[in-house]
């Protein structure tokens, strides 16, 4: 029998892997994809718990997460393009204009 704990544990593992990618990869597009992995792990949590509780609200929330993810994809990738145009690079190491 698959319990909700299975799903949650899987989701935690995926989330940790996504975190690892976000923190360690240099390529901004890969970082971006890792963020998608993290978002998806959260989506899995929402759906699993929604079924466990017997309520559709969690799944509706997944919709909104997807909406935000789509918006983020559009704007984030546009930012990457704009940055690449300026710096000839999409390395997060070169994203250093936030400092003092």
């Amino acid at each position, binding site marked *: 029998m698959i319990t909700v704990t299975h799903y949650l544990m899987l989701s935690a593992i995926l989330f940790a892997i996504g975190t690892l990618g976000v923190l*360690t990869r240099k390529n901004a597009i890969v970082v971006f994809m890792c963020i998608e992995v993290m978002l998806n792990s959260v989506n899995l949590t929402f759906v699993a718990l929604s079924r466990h509780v017997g309520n559709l609200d969690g799944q509706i929330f997944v919709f909104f997460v997807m909406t935000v993810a789509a918006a983020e994809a559009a704007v984030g990738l546009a930012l990457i393009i704009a940055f690449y145009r300026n710096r000839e690079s999409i390395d997060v190491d070169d994203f250093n204009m936030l400092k003092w």
Partner: protein
Amino acid sequence: MYSNLWLIPFFPLLGAIINGLFGKKIKNEAIIGSIGTLAMFLSFLVATQNFFRLIGDSQKVHEIVLASWMSVGNLQVNWELLLDPLSAVMIMVVTGVGTLIHLYSIGYMHGDPGFYRFFSYLNLFAFSMLMLVLGGNALVMFIGWEGVGLCSYLLIGFYIDKKSAGDAAKKAFVVNRVGDFGFLCGLLTLFWALGSHGVWTINFVEIAANAHLLEAGGVLITVVTLAFFLGATGKSAQIPLFTWLPDAMEGPTPVSALIHAATMVTAGVYMIGRMNILFAMAPSTMLTIAIIGAATAFLAASIGFAQNDIKRVLAYSTVSQLGYMFLAMGVGAFSAGIFHLMTHAFFKACLFLGSGSVIHAMHHAYHHAHLHDDPQDMRNMGGLRKKMPITYWTFLLSTIAIAGVPLFSGFFSKDEILWWSFGSTAGHPIFWIIAVAVAGMTAFYMFRLVFMTFFGEQRTDARARDHIPESPWTITVPLIILAFLAVVGGYVGVPKILGGGNHFGEFLNPVFGHAQELYDLHAHGSHAVEYTLIALSVCIALFGIYMAWLMYMKNPKLPAEFTAKFAGVYRFVFNKWYIDELYDFLFVNPCKRIGTFLWRAFDVRIVDGIVNGCAWVLKGCGAGLRYTQTGYMYNYAVAMVVGVVVIVGFYVFG
């Protein structure tokens, strides 16, 4: 009935605003000068109208409330004007002499780049002075009091590119501050003293009406009046605060005439006159005033002997004459003091303007000959009476008036003071002796001035000698009018003993009558004594003139022999009794040293140390903390994740 009184200070204020704001754009000297002069002239017309209305009026004291100013507790302060005989005389003097001096300034200041600035300041001064004399309560008066101080500062330092002018302006301002401190102390103490009797007021009429609540001759009223007197010494250049006035001669000559001879310096006398009831109640203050007045008159006159700068002689003469006025106030001769104030305004303004005319001509001549001699040094003058006849005659008439020659205005006013200083209950023969000696000294040094400037052979450099012109009409017309007033101005107040009606004294009686009743004028002598004293004083004045003639006309070598014989005394007098040096030693240098000490020890170390320490600590924190802001987004991401781990970990393990 007197509702247009507010126009008197308003016109000069308007003129000051117009010239101050738009003078730079207008540029045309004729227009600027006309605006300034016209403002004063309109003010003079309104003042004249009100003056004659007051003469014909049976009620002599009028308060006009313009607007409410503030209301604090039991105290209600209004913008109010007070028209009584005293202020009526003052506004006539201020606007009348002021108009003439404005007219004069058009000629004198011709070509100066600060022409509009000068007229703006001068009008502002007239406004402040009129507020001072018309103010119906002490606060309005104080506005005028401070305003004239400010304008005096601005006008002394009018030649802003001259360091000596700036220094003199600062000196005048700082010394006046000491006096203003006294004024405020007196005012606040009086306010509190009357308030403790349930009368919270600063209105002059109410103060006079409630003065009887205070104990006559008590400590409180003595303190109050002494504080007010300190204020008066600052403004009116009396011992110990007289040192600024001679330095104030750095300003343009019309300023010296208007502010430092005719009007502003008499503010102290006016103020004592305004508070005469309080002063009359404090005999020890009156004695102090009389002593200081007499001492100042003597000191300044003696310094006047040895000065060679034409304006400085006049400045010391002014201090001396102000000492006379204070002597008059001190012996209870309030109306005589005001009378002398008025005649002095005429002849001293005329003298200053005449000296200005001479300086103007000398300056013109030197400029023409490309010389850089001092145009104010009398040793470079001489024989000018043929070059500048109008200036010469007006100057001579005013000098005769100030010397106290009978039938001229100075004679009547001075004589009145002399008699009071001898005959009143507060008077004393010593006062009379000093005053008469000063009269003789005045006659001597004023005629020395005349002889050195206008008589004898011309000592001007040969290259400049033939270029000394008579001044233009804007300068000579005021001179003629003022000389005329200096001659006849005394006839409004011919004392009764000389067959006159003393109309001036009668006119001022509503203000001073009550206070003057306290003094019995004939305590020390009868009419016969008075006649003798008059004759004596006239003789001494004529003796002074004779001495001057002897030393500077008949035998020009005599002064040199004289100074050689009494070299020590001469040096002492020439250096103004070393008063400036004494003050430097006593007050200025200790203040500087304290200031330097506080600056080095307290300001730099402690005050700046605290401020810099704060900055240093924060700078250190910032320098350390800025390394946390790498600007790399993954560092911020790590921070976020660590935050999440900590929070969730707190739930799980906590």
